[in-house]
């Protein structure tokens, strides 16, 4: 597919590139994991509201994907990630994180159990080196299948209806985190009920050679259900509402940080529920036990901030005076659905309890004049938006 040497083509094209290029009104492309991908097709608002009110098609192909097979596949996976995958049945998906020896996060991703001893790991960043080293002593084969599998996220309340119209009979029976296999006039599709929007939605996986055909048929099937192509900018609003973390925004991989203290543990990111100390040894277990014993010095929390100006990159203080800095905002949005000014912030431990009042220093550019606003904010629970329809099986026929 990408035969040209990398130095000639520093950014690769995904199997959907020609389709995306044709629909892009703004020519707004950004690099993602070595590929050029769309940031905004038309307007962020249109695309965002399609996620919540209709459905959207998002190109997932740049996700790093690995196939893990072999007699020791489960043992290997369970030593890699912090949660217990013994409970994950075939044709199910689990969100998981993995850590280095010091219990600091390397990346998060989704684990697809495709068979008794076959897994697929989807991650934001390339992981082959870590996976191969983790395989020392295990009877597993690890293959980078990033280029071998094209992926589309079909997300929004009408997504199930679109797939049914496409002809995927029985797709409505998939429960959240289920995987189903479908044949579409000779094209094999794997559909998982997963996504990054916190809404009803599916991810559709296919051979890259089938990619354009599937895109065309999906767009045609979704025409009457308001299906639009989606760029990363609008997706980012939805993922914050849904409570999802973004690597390189909420945390940096421990493999990448240079300065001491810039790596993050699952506990700091509020991912305690993903750490299972009872399942046996996994990489980082001993360090995480020590962290659990010693307590975390900071934690990622949700903030509900007064006003309607997003607190991008804001510093957070204990009081309005701004004398004591207690952390900073990692992601911030005005949530169009919640009608709230929301953010994630990494705060010092004494300030992380829900209900705590903190102060956020927002910088505003109003017609090229910078203004500073000190706004009150409260620590609140995540996710900010979790509609019932994301779980309902079968989904309502919107």
């Amino acid at each position, binding site marked *: 597919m990408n035969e040209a040497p990398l130095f000639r083509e520093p950014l690769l094209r995904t199997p959907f590139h020609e389709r995306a290029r044709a629909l892009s009104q703004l020519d707004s492309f950004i690099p993602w994991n070595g590929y050029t991908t769309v940031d905004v097709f038309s307007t962020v608002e249109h695309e965002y509201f399609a996620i919540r009110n209709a459905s959207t098609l998002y190109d997932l192909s740049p996700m790093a994907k690995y196939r893990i097979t072999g007699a020791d596949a489960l*043992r290997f996976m369970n*030593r*890699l990630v912090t949660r217990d995958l013994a409970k994950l049945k075939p044709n199910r998906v689990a969100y998981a994180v993995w850590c*280095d*020896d010091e219990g600091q996060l390397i990346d998060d991703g989704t684990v697809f159990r495709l068979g008794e001893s076959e897994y697929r790991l989807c991650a934001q960043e390339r992981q082959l080196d*870590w996976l191969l*080293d*983790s395989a*020392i*002593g*295990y009877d597993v084969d690890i293959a980078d299948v990033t280029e071998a599998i094209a992926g589309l996220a079909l997300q929004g309340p009408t997504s199930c209806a679109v797939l049914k119209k496409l002809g995927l009979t029985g797709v409505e029976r998939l429960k959240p985190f289920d995987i189903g296999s479908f044949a579409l006039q000779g094209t094999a599709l794997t559909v998982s009920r997963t996504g990054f929007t916190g809404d009803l939605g599916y991810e559709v996986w296919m051979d890259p050679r089938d990619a354009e055909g599937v895109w065309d048929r999906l767009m045609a099937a979704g025409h009457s259900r308001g299906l639009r192509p989606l760029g990363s900018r609008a997706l980012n609003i939805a993922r914050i509402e849904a409570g999802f973390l973004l690597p390189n925004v909420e945390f940096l991989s421990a493999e990448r940080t240079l300065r001491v203290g810039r790596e993050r543990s699952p506990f700091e990111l509020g991912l305690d529920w993903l750490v299972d100390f009872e399942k*046996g*040894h996994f*990489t*980082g*277990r*001993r*360090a995480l036990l020590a962290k659990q014993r010693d307590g975390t010095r900071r934690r990622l929390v949700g903030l509900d901030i007064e006003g309607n100006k997003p607190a991008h990159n804001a510093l957070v203080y204990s009081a309005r005076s701004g004398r004591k800095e207690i952390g900073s905002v990692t992601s911030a949005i005005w949530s169009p659905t919640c009608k709230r000014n929301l953010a994630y912030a990494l705060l010092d431990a004494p300030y992380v309890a829900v209900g705590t009042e903190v102060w956020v220093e927002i910088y505003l550019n109003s017609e090229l004049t910078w203004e500073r606003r000190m706004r009150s904010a409260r620590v609140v629970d995540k996710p900010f938006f979790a509609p019932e329809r994301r779980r309902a099986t079968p989904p309502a026929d919107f």
Partner: protein
Amino acid sequence: MSAAADFDCIVIGAGHNGLVCASYLARGGRRVLVLEAAPEVGGAAITREFAPGFRVSAGAHLLQLMPRSMIEELSLKSHGLVFAGEDLQTIALSSDGAPLTLDAGGVVGLPAAERTAYSDLMAQLQRFGRALAPLLNAAPPRLGTSSNADRLSLLKLGWQIRRLGRRDMRELLRIGGMCVYDLLQENLSTPLLQGAMGFDAVLGTNFGPRAPGSVFTLLCRMAAAANADRMAPALPQGGLGALSNALAASARSSGVTIRTDAIVQRIRVERDRAVGVTLASGESISAGLVVSNADPKTTFLGLLGSEHLDTGFVRRVAHLRSRGLSAKLHLALDRLPPFRGLDGAALGGRLLVAPSLDYIERAYNHSKYGEYSAAPSIEITLPSVQDPQLAPAGAHVLSAVVQYVPYALKGGWESARAPLVASLVEQLDAYAPGLRRSVLAAELLTPHDIEQQFRIFGGHWHHGELALDQFLMVRPVPGAAQYATPVAGLYLCGAGSHPGGGIMGIAGRNAARAMLARAA
């Protein structure tokens, strides 16, 4: 410590470090069991018959670096250790001239200026060795901790070096990372003398004299020799196996139980703690602590298994450089070989075929490409000269360390063994004309054979290259450099740990001390 366990401590491997460790643990009041896979104790320090009536130290063949104080503490002499020869001279053989005889103090038969240069250089290296020696006898300090013991240990090291005085300190820091080739070119001008000194710097390593860090290995040797209070090698009567037997007798007298033919298959882990071992026979033995004298790769990747370890740690263990490049040659000779220029008594010394630094470097070059050299450097001993019982009356045993012989020979070892033996005999014949006609039997142990016979991954006699990046607080790897390992209750006590191999016994003693200190 659990009273329900069969033993307080299980030591895996009755090599010298395992036996030393067991002895000190037993003296500390522990119930100790030593498990040895082979039919006899000793690991790579054993004496065995390789041809009818001819016995030889099958692995290590000289004793120098084990501290006299340890030999005293363990009463090895009353347990049967007798030296057939001590303060062995080193004799550098020349293919076309007279051999050079040298020892720690000086060299004979050279112009005055060169003799002085040699004595001065040796005196300086010995000062460095004495300064560094205390470093060997304790667990290496950890970096970046707030432990006062670690800080004190680092401070002591700094003070030892500072105490050398400004000139020596500067020189030590200057040469510490250098190659021995440059150091010897700076100080000496006789190729034969340079070759003999350079050989000691690369003996048992995986590099030649032009490799950076080859001065470092020479300094390690100097430090270990100073620490042992023995500046020249000695020959235990009955070979190195006699030393192992004395160590085992000493251990038994302290209450240690030793079982041979007991192959450990697995270190058992329960609730993230080492709780014993399972033998190949299926037998399971429990203990409060397990200490492994096996090399780090065998211990972690084989006996323990990576499932009990973190990926980063396993990665470091897997990357440990542990391929051996030294082979052993044993010859049964029907008479004393006529080495040119040497009389009977001199033949009891340590003979070197390393006529120049370039010669050694060329010998090394071949190994980089999976070949052996037709002109290797060789350390020869004729132990039967001082210890006649090793061979039938009038006959003799030749034991040689040959460098460099690759672990994985291009084309495989199967059909290459005989040609290499023939080539080595040919080489020796050039220095001892007629030797080839007196060979009754020959045995060659390649690094691969050493791996198989002595259960040392890669066949490296230090259980992993001794080099700046695998030394002190990073030996064998960070996370296991203080004898304790990431798995509670599992310790290391072998040559792969600080301060390395070479029949020193210090790793074993340090490990025992670390275990006794933790448990106290």
